[in-house]
Structure formats: structure tokens, C-alpha cells
């Protein structure tokens, strides 16, 4: 099983990889790809205000 530290290093590696990729292509291209992630999250977001605040308060209580 992958350790937390290996996973964390891989994530950091990807952050650098992505930043370098962003430098190698026009803004229009990286932003098009980024928007797929952002727009899909908002599309599938909950609309239940009370449930959302309940979850946020719980997360805050347990230090997110």
C-alpha cells in the first residue's frame, strides 16, 4: 500500500509538473483544462443550505 508520504510527494510533484505545463502552453489551453475540474464541481454541488452549513460547522469543529 502507498504510504502517506509517497502520496504527498506525488501530489507535490504533480503541482510542479502542472505549473511547468502551464508555462509551456497558451493560457487558453491550460485554463480550458482547469475549467473542466472547476465547472464540473459546481455543476454537481449541493443546493441544500442547511445541510451545507451543518457539514461546514462539523468540519470546523474537527479542524477541517
Amino acid at each position, binding site marked *: 500500500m502507498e504510504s502517506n508520504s509517497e502520496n504527498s510527494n506525488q501530489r507535490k510533484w504533480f503541482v510542479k509538473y502542472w505549473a*511547468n505545463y502551464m508555462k509551456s502552453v497558451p493560457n487558453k489551453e491550460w*485554463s480550458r483544462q482547469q475549467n473542466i*475540474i472547476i465547472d464540473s464541481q459546481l455543476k454537481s454541488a449541493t443546493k441544500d443550505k442547511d445541510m451545507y452549513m451543518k457539514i461546514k460547522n462539523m468540519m470546523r469543529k474537527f479542524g477541517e
Partner: protein
Amino acid sequence: MEYEYKDNKITFDKELSVLDKAVIKFVKILDELGIEYVIISGYVAILFGRSRATEDVDFFIEPLNMHKFVELCSRIEKEYWFLNSSDINELFSMLSDNLSIRAAEKGNVMPNYEVKFALRQHEVESLHQKIEVIVNGNTLFISCLEGQIAYKFKLGSEKDIEDALHLYEIFGKNLDKSRLLSGAKNLKVYEEMIENGIEF
């Protein structure tokens, strides 16, 4: 990333996301009412291309008196609802206690705008050291990048450190190294930043 960083101003164009458009729309209300603000935290990294989504966008605004706050609420409530409470007095009391309030477009909870009065020293400094960003001709004010990077290390979650690394990778040569070092020392995150490859 193609951008121009000059005189405390970053100018660039990109394909705007639904989130970008929503933030630009919300900020117009603050601009209309002449309320000073600064966007902090995750959205700053996302604005500049970080490959993740977020549900909330964090703002510090200048502390308002009750009269001005009522004016702000009246304007906000035309299109948005508050998630914490619908009672203006309660919302004002929360802000005065250095808590945040959240607003989202009516019928939605995401994205939401988490707003705090800038009351503490570091919040006031964020407001005063803001950077102007012109994205596709729209103006946004964000906190200074060096402070943002150090603060993200202070927060310390995986997500926050990755946001910091992203900003560092994108703006590396344009960052003020002495300001970065000062942030690292003030927030006591120097070692963590060195360990993660930040150079001063």
C-alpha cells in the same frame, strides 16, 4: 503562464471558469458600494491556474458601520442569500466578533463568498498590501503573493501547501524574496518552506 507583473499589478487573459465569472460578479457589488476588499486563500491559487476546485472564496473587507452594512446586505440580497443567518443584526454581530459570514446566489450554496472584517493585524495588512489583478479586463484585488505563500504554509494542510507551491512555481522570479523571508519568519514556517524547496 503568460502574464505581465508590473507595479503591483498582474495582467493576463484566460478562458474564464464558472467560478471566475461568479467571483467577478460578486466583486462588482463591493466595487459599486466603494467597499475595500481583498481576496485571500485558495481562490488566489485557482485564479492563477491551480488544478483544483473550491466551494468558497474568502474575502477580507474593511470594517463597516451598521449603516453601510445594511446597504451592503440590501444590495447582496437582491441576488444572493446568506447561509449563516437571515438576520442582519446577527450577521453584523458575527462580523464584529471576527467571524465570517457566507453568501451564495439564491438557490445555491456553491460557490459561496466567505466574508470577514479585516480586524486583526495580519488581516489589515492583507488589505493594505493588496495586488491588483486584471483578468480578461476585469479587476480583482488579491492579497500579496509572498504573504499568501507563507500563510498557506502556516495553515499547513496538504492542500494549502500545494497552493503555496503552485504560486511559488508560477511567480517565482517575480516574488520579492525579502518579503517572502519576512513572512516565513513572522509566521514561523521558515523550516517547512525550505524543506519544500522555497528559496529566499
